[in-house]
């Protein structure tokens, strides 16, 4: 693949949109776009190259976190009552996330807004940074299981999903107490039928709780990885055919997918927390109470 690497160096100088080196990974048969870390690692070779390859994800994680922190630090440096543009934008983002989380969790959801909001911004930033030429999304990173079936196991997304899983269970145990938590997992038995069904409901709820991080992981990973593979395939076609950016409409679609997937991850995490909070028997649904009360009052 030296031809593609040399093409990438020439196009870096020409600052062509979206062109990069396409490595055909012969073992997996899937095409990945090269990013600047792999290009540097290939150019250097030897132990430094190996080290760069193993810390590729850390470099992009630090980069993503650095970009996010820089934006919000600059937006909050000199806080004035009448905000400037960056401060207004940052406040708008935080207010929007707070409104979204409190719409599902109610007014006491404000304690969970930092966690969920940071999750949304982090995943959104990670997804979007992968669309910049010569950069890579950490959410699309996976290790390939050794063995007969080269199954890609996602790394970053499983970490995020495990964080959400642990936080949701911890919130459940803390808010309802350990007995309330076990009671919730056994389906809240109240009458004789409930107690008879409890030994059946407990494994079902347990498997349901364990399936949630699985689905979160693979949904985010498959969407972002599939999108990036699509872009990589089109870039591979474009490199052969005189640098026409075929991948441009798919990049636009990828921007939408990045936002939607970050939003869905956060929405599902919020709903899982909402299901773990103690249910007030008077209010069946959160968030739509205002309109329902209004209808009851008018009707």
């Amino acid at each position, binding site marked *: 693949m030296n031809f593609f690497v040399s093409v990438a160096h020439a196009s870096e100088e020409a600052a062509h949109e979206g062109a990069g080196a396409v490595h055909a990974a012969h073992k997996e048969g899937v095409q990945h776009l090269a990013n600047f870390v792999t290009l540097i690692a290939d150019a250097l070779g030897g132990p430094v190259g190996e080290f760069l390859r193993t810390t590729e994800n850390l470099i992009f994680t630090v980069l993503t976190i650095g970009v996010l922190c820089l934006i919000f630090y600059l937006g909050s440096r000199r806080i004035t009552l009448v905000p400037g543009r960056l401060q207004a934008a940052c406040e708008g983002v935080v207010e929007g996330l707070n409104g979204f989380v409190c719409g599902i969790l109610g007014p006491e959801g404000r304690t969970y807004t930092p966690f969920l909001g940071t999750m949304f911004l982090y995943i959104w930033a990670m997804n979007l940074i992968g669309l910049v030429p010569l950069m890579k999304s950490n959410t699309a990173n996976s290790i390939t299981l050794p063995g007969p079936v080269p199954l890609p196991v996602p790394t970053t997304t499983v970490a995020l999903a495990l964080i959400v899983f642990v936080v949701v269970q911890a919130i459940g145990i803390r808010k309802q107490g350990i007995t309330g938590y076990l009671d919730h997992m056994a389906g809240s038995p109240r009458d004789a039928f409930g107690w008879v069904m409890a030994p059946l409901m407990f494994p079902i709820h347990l498997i349901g709780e364990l399936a949630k991080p699985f689905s979160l992981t693979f949904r985010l990973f498959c969407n972002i990885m599939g999108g990036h593979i699509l872009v990589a395939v089109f870039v591979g076609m474009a490199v052969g055919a005189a640098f026409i950016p075929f991948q441009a409409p798919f990049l636009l679609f990828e921007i939408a997918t990045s936002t*939607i997937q970050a939003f869905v991850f956060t*929405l599902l995490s919020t709903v899982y927390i909402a299901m773990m909070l103690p249910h007030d028997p008077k209010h069946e649904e959160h968030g739509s109470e205002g309109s329902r009360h209004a209808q009851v009052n008018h009707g």
Partner: protein
Amino acid sequence: MTYQTALAIFLPVALAFAAFGSALGLGKAVSSAMEATARQPEASGKILVNMMAGCALIEALTLYVLIVVFVLSGKIS
């Protein structure tokens, strides 16, 4: 029939089935979102947000199949 032939025939068919199923599901979701918006146009923002979330969840199932196709297509020689 070797396993490569079987994979080469049935991987695209599997992906087509998954895409067909998710297209049906998405069509139903979007059509009910359209009807709800037509009944109450001032709620179109909230309906759009909920529709997007539902569509992402339905789309995820097709993407699981896509990843399996990408993984197994490497085993065709």
